[in-house]
C-alpha cells in the first residue's frame, strides 16, 4: 500500500496580512507560515489507513519554495515515511492546473494506490488541484471526504462524502483513487520526540521541475481588502466592557430586540 499526501505551506491562520507592493498577492516575507489545515487531516487519514492495513508507506509531497521544507519535516516527524519536494520558488504565481500538472509529472511513476489531499488551501482556495490531478493521472476522485472506512480497504475503498445541509453519502471507489479530506474529521497526532529524531534520517527527494506555461491560467489583477457592504458601527473604542454597554443600548433602542 502506497499513499501520497499532498501538503501545502500557507500563511498562518492568525497572521496579519499585508498586501504586496504590486498588489498581486500578500507580502510573504514577514509572516508566519504553517501547514494548510485540511492537509494535516489528509496526512492523519493516510497514516491511519497504512496502520490499519498493517503495511505500506506514506509519502508526503509538497510543491513550494525551500521554506516548505518545514511542512515536510513536520509530516515526517508525525510518521510519514519519505518526502517529495517539488521545488518552485514562485509557486504562488502558478494556477491550479499548472500546480496539478507539475505534481502529476512528478509523482506519476510512483503509481500510488491512494492520493490524499486537503479539500482546499487556506490561501488561494482554488479547491481543485486534487481533482485536476486525478483527471491528469486518469484515476477517480472523491472530494470533501469525512470518513474513510478502513475495514473496507482492498481493491476498493468505501468513503463517506459530505453533501450540503447535513446530508452525507457513501461511495465505493476502485483503487487507485484520489481523496480530498475535510478539516476536523479526526484528532491529529502530535509528533513524538522519537518521531522528530527519526525524521532527520528519512529520505527527501528534491525535484526541480520545468513548469509549463499555461495560456488559460486566470491572472490575478489586484488584491485588496474586501469592500465593506455594510457600515459597521464599532463600539467601545477598544474597551470591551464599554463596548458591551453601548451595544446593549443599541440592541434596545435601534434594533429593539430587548
Amino acid at each position, binding site marked *: 500500500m502506497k499513499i501520497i499526501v499532498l501538503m501545502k505551506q500557507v500563511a498562518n491562520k492568525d497572521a496579519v496580512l499585508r498586501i504586496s507592493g504590486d498588489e498581486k498577492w500578500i507580502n510573504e516575507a514577514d509572516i508566519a507560515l504553517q501547514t494548510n489545515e485540511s492537509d494535516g487531516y489528509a496526512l492523519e487519514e493516510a497514516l491511519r489507513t497504512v496502520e490499519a492495513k498493517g503495511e505500506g508507506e506514506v509519502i508526503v509531497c509538497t510543491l513550494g519554495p525551500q521554506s516548505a521544507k518545514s511542512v515536510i519535516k513536520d509530516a515526517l516527524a508525525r510518521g510519514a515515511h519519505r518526502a517529495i519536494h517539488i521545488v518552485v520558488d514562485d509557486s504562488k504565481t502558478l494556477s491550479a492546473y499548472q500546480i496539478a500538472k507539475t505534481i502529476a509529472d512528478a509523482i506519476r511513476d510512483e503509481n500510488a494506490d491512494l492520493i490524499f489531499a486537503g479539500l482546499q488551501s487556506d490561501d488561494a*482556495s482554488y479547491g481543485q488541484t486534487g*481533482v485536476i490531478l486525478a483527471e491528469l493521472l486518469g484515476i477517480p476522485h472523491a472530494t470533501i471526504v469525512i470518513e474513510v472506512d478502513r475495514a473496507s480497504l482492498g481493491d476498493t475503498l468505501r468513503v463517506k462524502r459530505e453533501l*450540503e445541509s447535513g446530508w*452525507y*453519502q457513501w*461511495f465505493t471507489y476502485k483503487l487507485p483513487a484520489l481523496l480530498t479530506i475535510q478539516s476536523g474529521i479526526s484528532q491529529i497526532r502530535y509528533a513524538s520526540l522519537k518521531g522528530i529524531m527519526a525524521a532527520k534520517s528519512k529520505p527527501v527527494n528534491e525535484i526541480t521541475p520545468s513548469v509549463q506555461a499555461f495560456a488559460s491560467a*486566470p491572472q490575478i489583477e489586484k488584491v485588496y481588502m474586501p469592500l465593506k457592504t455594510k457600515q459597521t458601527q464599532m463600539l*467601545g473604542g477598544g474597551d470591551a466592557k464599554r463596548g458591551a454597554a453601548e*451595544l446593549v443600548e443599541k440592541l434596545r433602542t435601534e434594533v429593539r430586540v430587548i
Partner: protein
Amino acid sequence: MSILVFIEHKDCTLNKTSLEAITAAQSIGRDLGLGITAVIPCDKDCGLAQEIAGYALEKVIIAKNEKLGTYTPDAYADAWEEVIKAVNPQYVVMAHTYQVRDFAPKVAARFRREVVGDCIRYRNEGGKLVLTRRIFLGKLDADVSLQGDAPYFITFQSGAFRGDNAEKGSAELQTMDVNVGDVRMTPEAPFQEAKASVDLTKSEVIVAVGRGIKSQENIAVAQQLADVLGADLAASRPICDSEWLPIDRQIGSSGQTVAPKVYIALGISGAIQHIVGMKNAGTIVAINKDGEAPIFDIADYGIVGDLFEAVPVMVEEIKKAKA
C-alpha cells in the same frame, strides 16, 4: 456563442442555488450579448425541465443517460464533456455547491482549463469578464481576469446573485442522449445523520460561538447571554467538530442556513463557509479580538475586544434593561 448554466437537482427536485446561477448567467448574457442554455443531467425526461423552461433562456437541454440518475463525478464529467463539445459555449456558469466543486474542475481539466471558483461578483471589461474571488479565508479579495480561449468555467458563491431575480420567459426544450463511459465509483443512497432536532432557521435571535470561545466550559458564558435574550445557541464548524456543541447547532455551508432578526457572533472570525450560512440576518453583531477578522465586514455592530470581558457586561446590562 452562448453561456451554459448548470441546473443541479436530486431526483428532479431543484437545488435552489441553480436559480442564482441562472440570474448570474442572465446578467452576464445581457452584458456580453450571449444567449443562455440551461443543462440538466438526468436519467429521464427530467420533471424539472418544464419549470426551468419557464425562465428567460434560449434553450434547456436534458443531458440524458441511465447512469445520470444518481450523481457521480465520472458520469457527470462525461455528460458535460459531450454537451460542451456539442454547444461550444463561451462560458460555463455554475453555483459553487459541494457537487459542483466535485465535478467542475474535472470537466474543465478535460478542456485544459481550470475553474475560476467561488466568485462573489464580476464586471465587464471591454467584453471580457473580471471576476472577484475571496482569498485567505475571506480576509482579502482578488480581481481575476480570464486568459486564453473559451470556454471559461466560472462558479459563483451562494448568495452572490439572488435566485428570485431570475427573469421568467420561455425556453425551447431539447433532450440530448449523451454517452457515459466507465463509472469508477459506486454511490449508496444519501442520508441525513441524526435529523436536526434543533431548527435554527426559525430562530428570531441567535447567539453563535466560534474558536474564540476557547473551551467547552466557556460555552456557558454564551449560554447566559442567549438565556437573557431568549436566543438560540449556535456555533461555527470548529466548535461542532470538537463536539463542544452538537452538530445540529452548526451554522454554515455544511450546517444550517439562517436569517434571524439578530445574529450575535462571539469569537467567530467569519470564514466564508460560516458567512454563507448567516449573512442574511437582519442585524449582525460581532465581538472578536482580531479587528481585521472578516466577520466585521458584514457586521452592523462590532466590538474589538475580549468576549469574556464583553459578554458578562452585556448580560448584566440586559437584565437591568429588562427590570
